[in-house]
C-alpha cells in the first residue's frame, strides 16, 4: 500500500526528460504519483497588443498535459494536474516584468525553480502524501556525511547542465529531491525513453521561456501590462557613450540587455554594445566591446549549498549566465547578504538580474543575484 515515506511525486511536464524519470522510477519499483503544474494560461494574452492570436505554447499547453497524462496512464501511476497559476504569476511573471522595467535581465527559470518546482511542488507533494519529488533536471545531488550537507553537482551531460538554474535550492529541498537523469546524457535519455516504449521519445526539447511562445519578451511585457490595466512606465530615454556623448534615443530600458549588439538602431563605424542600463536616468550606455569587461561584480540574495556560509575569502569558478564558461575568481563577503566576486581575468557582460553561481570543480558552492 501507499506509504508516505516512500511515495515519490514525479513532476511531469509532458516532455521526454520527466516522462523518462517517471518510467525509470516505476521500473525500479517505487510508489509514484505524477503531478503536472498548471502555471500559466497560454490563451491569456493571446491577441493582445501584437501577441500571436494562435498560441503554440510549449509549457502548460493542453497538448503537454495530454502527453503527461498519457505517460502516466501507460505507466499506470496516479496522475493529477495542480493549479499554481496565481503563485506563478506572483513569484515569476510579475518579477520578470518588473526586473525588465527596472533595466535588469531576469532569469524566470531560476525563480520558477525556487518558488514553484522546489517550494510549492514539494509542499503539494507532502500534502498529497509523498515525501520526495523527482524531476527531469540534468543535475546530481548527494549527501556528504563528512560535511553533513547535501551537495548539488553538475550532471554527466555537460551540455545539458542545469545547475546554474538550481543554485537557490535549500538543504531541505535537496534532501527531498531526486534528479534521476543526472548520470545520463540526453541521447541516452532518449534511448531509455524508447526502451520504455514512451511514444514521445522523439519529442523536441523546449528551448524558449515557457510562457513566451515565440520568445518576444518585449511584446509579452506590453501585453501583460495592457491586460493588467497598467500604463507601461515611462522608461524611454537616451543612448549615450561612457563619456556622456549623446548617440540616440530609445523607447524604454526594458528593450535592452547588457552585451546586446543587435537592435540598437545606431549607425556606427565600429560595433556598439550595451554597456550598462540606468533605470533612474533612463540612460542606456553603449560602447565598444572591451568596455563590457568587468574586474568584479556584487551578488545579493545568496544561497549556499556545499558550505554553510562564506568565511573570509574563497577561490571559486563563477558562472554569470547559463551559457558561460566558469571563470576563476575570489569570493569575499561584503555585506550580510552580499558577496564580491573578483575575477582573475576581466569578465565580459556582467548583467544585473542574472545569477552568479559559484562552483568548485563539479560542485555548486552557492550563488546569488548580480546587482
Amino acid at each position, binding site marked *: 500500500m501507499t506509504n508516505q515515506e516512500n511515495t515519490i511525486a514525479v513532476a511531469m511536464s509532458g516532455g521526454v526528460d520527466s516522462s523518462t524519470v517517471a518510467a525509470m522510477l516505476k521500473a525500479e519499483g517505487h510508489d509514484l504519483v505524477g503531478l503536472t503544474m498548471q502555471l500559466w494560461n497560454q490563451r491569456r494574452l493571446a491577441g493582445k497588443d501584437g501577441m500571436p492570436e494562435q498560441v503554440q505554447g510549449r509549457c502548460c499547453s493542453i497538448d503537454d*498535459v495530454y502527453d503527461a497524462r498519457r505517460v502516466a496512464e501507460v505507466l499506470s501511476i496516479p496522475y*493529477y*494536474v495542480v*493549479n499554481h497559476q496565481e503563485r506563478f504569476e506572483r513569484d515569476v511573471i510579475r518579477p520578470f516584468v518588473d526586473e525588465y522595467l527596472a533595466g535588469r535581465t531576469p532569469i524566470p527559470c531560476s525563480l520558477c525553480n525556487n518558488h514553484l518546482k522546489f517550494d510549492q511542488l514539494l509542499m503539494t507533494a*507532502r*500534502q498529497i*502524501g509523498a515525501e520526495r519529488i523527482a524531476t527531469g533536471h540534468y543535475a546530481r545531488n548527494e549527501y556528504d556525511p563528512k560535511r553533513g550537507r547535501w551537495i548539488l553537482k553538475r550532471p554527466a551531460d555537460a551540455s545539458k547542465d542545469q545547475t546554474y538554474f538550481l543554485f537557490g535550492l535549500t538543504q531541505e529541498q535537496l534532501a527531498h529531491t531526486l534528479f534521476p537523469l543526472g548520470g545520463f546524457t540526453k541521447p541516452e535519455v532518449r534511448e531509455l525513453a524508447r526502451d520504455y516504449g514512451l511514444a514521445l521519445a522523439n519529442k523536441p526539447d523546449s528551448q524558449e521561456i515557457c510562457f513566451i511562445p515565440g520568445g518576444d519578451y518585449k511584446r509579452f511585457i506590453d501585453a501583460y501590462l495592457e491586460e493588467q490595466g497598467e500604463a507601461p512606465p515611462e522608461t524611454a530615454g537616451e543612448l549615450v557613450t561612457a563619456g556622456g556623448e549623446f548617440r540616440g534615443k530609445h523607447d524604454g530600458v526594458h528593450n535592452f540587455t547588457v552585451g546586446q549588439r543587435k537592435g540598437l538602431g545606431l549607425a556606427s563605424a565600429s560595433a556598439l554594445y550595451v554597456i550598462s542600463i540606468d533605470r533612474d536616468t533612463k540612460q542606456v550606455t553603449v560602447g565598444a566591446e572591451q568596455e563590457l569587461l568587468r574586474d568584479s561584480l556584487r551578488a545579493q540574495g545568496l544561497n549556499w549549498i556545499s558550505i554553510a556560509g562564506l568565511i573570509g575569502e574563497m577561490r571559486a569558478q563563477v558562472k554569470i549566465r547559463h551559457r558561460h564558461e566558469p571563470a576563476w575568481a575570489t569570493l569575499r563577503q561584503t555585506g550580510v547578504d552580499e558577496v564580491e566576486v573578483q575575477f582573475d581575468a576581466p569578465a565580459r557582460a556582467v548583467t544585473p538580474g542574472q545569477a552568479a553561481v559559484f562552483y568548485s570543480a563539479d560542485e555548486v558552492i552557492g550563488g546569488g543575484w548580480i546587482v
Partner: protein
Amino acid sequence: MPRIYLDANATTPLLPEVLEAMRPFLLEHFGNASSIHQEGQHARSAVERARASVARLLSCRPSEIVFTSGGTEGDNLAIFGSVRPGDHVITTSVEHHAVLHAVERLGDRGVDVDFLPVNRQGVVAPEDVRQALRPNTTLISVMMANNETGVLQPVKEIGQIAAEAGVRFHVDAVQAAGKLPLDVDTIGCHLLTISGHKMHAPQGTGALYVRRGTRLEPLFAGGAHERQRRAGTENVAGIVGLGKAAECALEGLGNALPEQMRVLRDRLEAALVQHAAGVNGGHAARVANTTNLCFEGLDGEALVIALDRKGLAVSSGAACSSGASEPSHVLEAMGLSTEQARSSLRFSLHRQTTEEEIAQAIELVSSQLERLRELSAVTVR
C-alpha cells in the same frame, strides 16, 4: 477499502435497473425511432414511454419534453433558442458555466445581458430581478439548485415576476431533479433543463421542458426530430435510461429518499464543520445532498488529491481545460476571497450513499485535515 464516492453533483453512478432497461436497446432493439418498420416502431414506442416518464417527473405533458444530450445542450437550446439581437437577458452570477458562458456569448453578439449578484448565502433577490427588467427583456434564466453549494434560488417568486412582466423564464434544474419534487406550473417556467447523469441515468442524456406554445429556434439544422426542436437521431438507449431514472427518482421522492440523504449530509456536515471556517451557503435553503465547506488556510486542491489517494472522491472548484481546478466563481460571487474559494470542498451524496460510508468519510477527512494543518504549520512562509 472500497472507494467512497461523494461527488454526485459531478456525476452519479448508473442504477442497475437503468442499465437493465437500456440493455435491449443497445443490443437486439437497435432500430431508428424515425423508421417506418417494426424495428423503428419498437424504438419509437420506447422513446415515447420514456418521454411520459420524464413528463411525470416534471409534472408536464409528454409533448413538452425535448430530449437532449444533457444539461449543457438543454441550457444552450433554451437560451440561444429564445433570444434575438436587441433583446435583454437577465441571469445570475452563480449559474453553471452552461448558462453563464452562453449568456456571455450573447453579450458578445450585441444582446443586453445582466448578471445579478447574490447575497453571502448565494441567493439572488427576486426584487433585483424585478428591478433589472427592461422593455426589451425577453428571457430570465435562473438555476433552481446550485451545483457547488446546493443553495436553492427563489424560482417560484421569480416565476411570478416573469409572468407579470410577460417574460420567458428558463430554469436550470440539473441539480434539483430527483432531489426535490418538480412542478413546472408551480415554478411558472417556460423552459426547464435536466441532465440524465446527475440522476443516475447515463452521461450524454438529458431533457428540456418546453411549455406548450413556446417558440424555440433549434440549435441544430437537420431532420424534424423532437417536433422540429432538436435534429438528430434519438439516442434511444440513453433516452430509455433517462426514462427509467426518472421513474426511480419519482419513486425515491415518494419514499422520502431526499430526507434520508439529508440526515446523512447533516451528519457529515456537523462533524466536519468543527474543522472548518463555515458552510458555504449553510444558512440558505439547500438541496438535501450537498454541503460545501471552507477549510480556511488549506489548499483545497491538495486536499482533494490527498483524499482521493485515501479512497474518497470529492471536489473543489471547477475543472479547467487541463484538469486542474480553478477557484469557484460561485463562491467568489458569494463574497468569498479567492483563497477562501480555493480552500473550499464540496461533498455531494447520492441515493446509494450509506451510513457506513459517511462515518468512514468523516474519519478520513478529519485525519487528512489534521495532517495538512500540521504540515502547513511547519512550512508556513
